[in-house]
């Protein structure tokens, strides 16, 4: 699973200052879960330039062909997207999904992949990650440092929710949002700004 010369050229041409290595994706998605000891290895479904985006889709499995990811991990990288977390535009990655097979959840694999991706994005010059969280996703992603893309709208709805239940409507941190409140969102836009 290697980036071709074409992919590397797209990155350095569209994102000035990006540093690209051919094995970037392979290194990013190779993780070593504590149990079982076999590493989760990435397998490429697609790495391609699709319109004005660089896209890649991978699935993870052990060397004994046990699925680690539940379906594909899909990413799209755009070089010129208006920033949600500030003024201007630049490189933004959109994360479509990261779901792990049940036996591999709660073993720090998801957090490791996210940390690897952020390290890669910083080297490539990506400024923001955008995603939509569903099911139990909002709680997990907010714990991993993501924030609402429309904080004023979410806070307005939290004030309404808190007023109905007699909760304190003031928050110190996004991580203080109750899971019961966040479970009401089936498609919540979240972002992470990479400094």
């Amino acid at each position, binding site marked *: 699973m290697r980036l071709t010369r074409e992919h590397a050229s797209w990155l350095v041409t569209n994102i000035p200052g990006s540093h690209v290595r051919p094995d970037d994706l392979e290194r990013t998605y190779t993780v070593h879960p504590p149990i079982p000891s076999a590493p989760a290895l990435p397998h490429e479904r697609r790495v391609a330039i699709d319109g004005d*985006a660089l896209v890649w889709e991978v699935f993870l499995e052990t060397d004994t062909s046990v699925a680690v990811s539940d379906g594909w991990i899909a990413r799209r990288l755009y070089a010129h997207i208006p920033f*949600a977390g500030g003024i201007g535009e630049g490189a933004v990655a*959109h994360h*479509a999904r990261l779901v792990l097979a049940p036996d591999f959840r709660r073993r720090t694999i998801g957090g490791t992949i996210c940390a690897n991706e952020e390290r890669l994005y910083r080297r490539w010059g990506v400024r923001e990650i*955008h995603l939509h969280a569903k099911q139990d996703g909002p709680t997990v992603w907010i714990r991993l440092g993501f924030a609402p893309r429309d904080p*004023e709208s979410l*806070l*307005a709805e939290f004030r309404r929710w808190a007023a109905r239940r007699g909760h304190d409507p003031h928050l110190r941190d996004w991580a203080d949002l109750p899971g019961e409140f966040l479970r009401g*969102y089936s498609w919540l836009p979240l972002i992470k700004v990479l400094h």
Partner: protein
Amino acid sequence: MRETLSIRTDLEHLATIEWCEGSLVVHAVHPEYETAVERWRLQGLLEWLPEGEAVVPRHTPSSDRLFLGRLEAYLRTHYPGHHTVLQATPTTPVKSTEARGIELGDLLPMAAAAVLTFSLVGGGAGTLELARPGQAFSPTPTGQVRP
């Protein structure tokens, strides 16, 4: 065409925004919602839309004629506690009536001008109604964000 979007929750009014000829004017806004409106005005609306297996971006600047409609749909889709009302008012040219000996002022009291109101409240069905001038849109200009 002039459009007005009103945004609120069960608890409080959040904003009333008007789009007219490419400009966005804020007529009333909750203090904690000002930054959202200012961000939309400056940066427009970015959406990620499903397209086949992929999710692709769509950016609509606030000067775009479609901006308020897309913002209304975006809020309704992503924030179920938001109630939005979008009103569109066609701007009709005023014709001179002096040649027929009628003063324009004579017409105004009976002007059942065609003000088209399209309301969507919490994803409910759209309704069409006729309103007299000033009825469909009469916001109180409080807390206007710098244009």
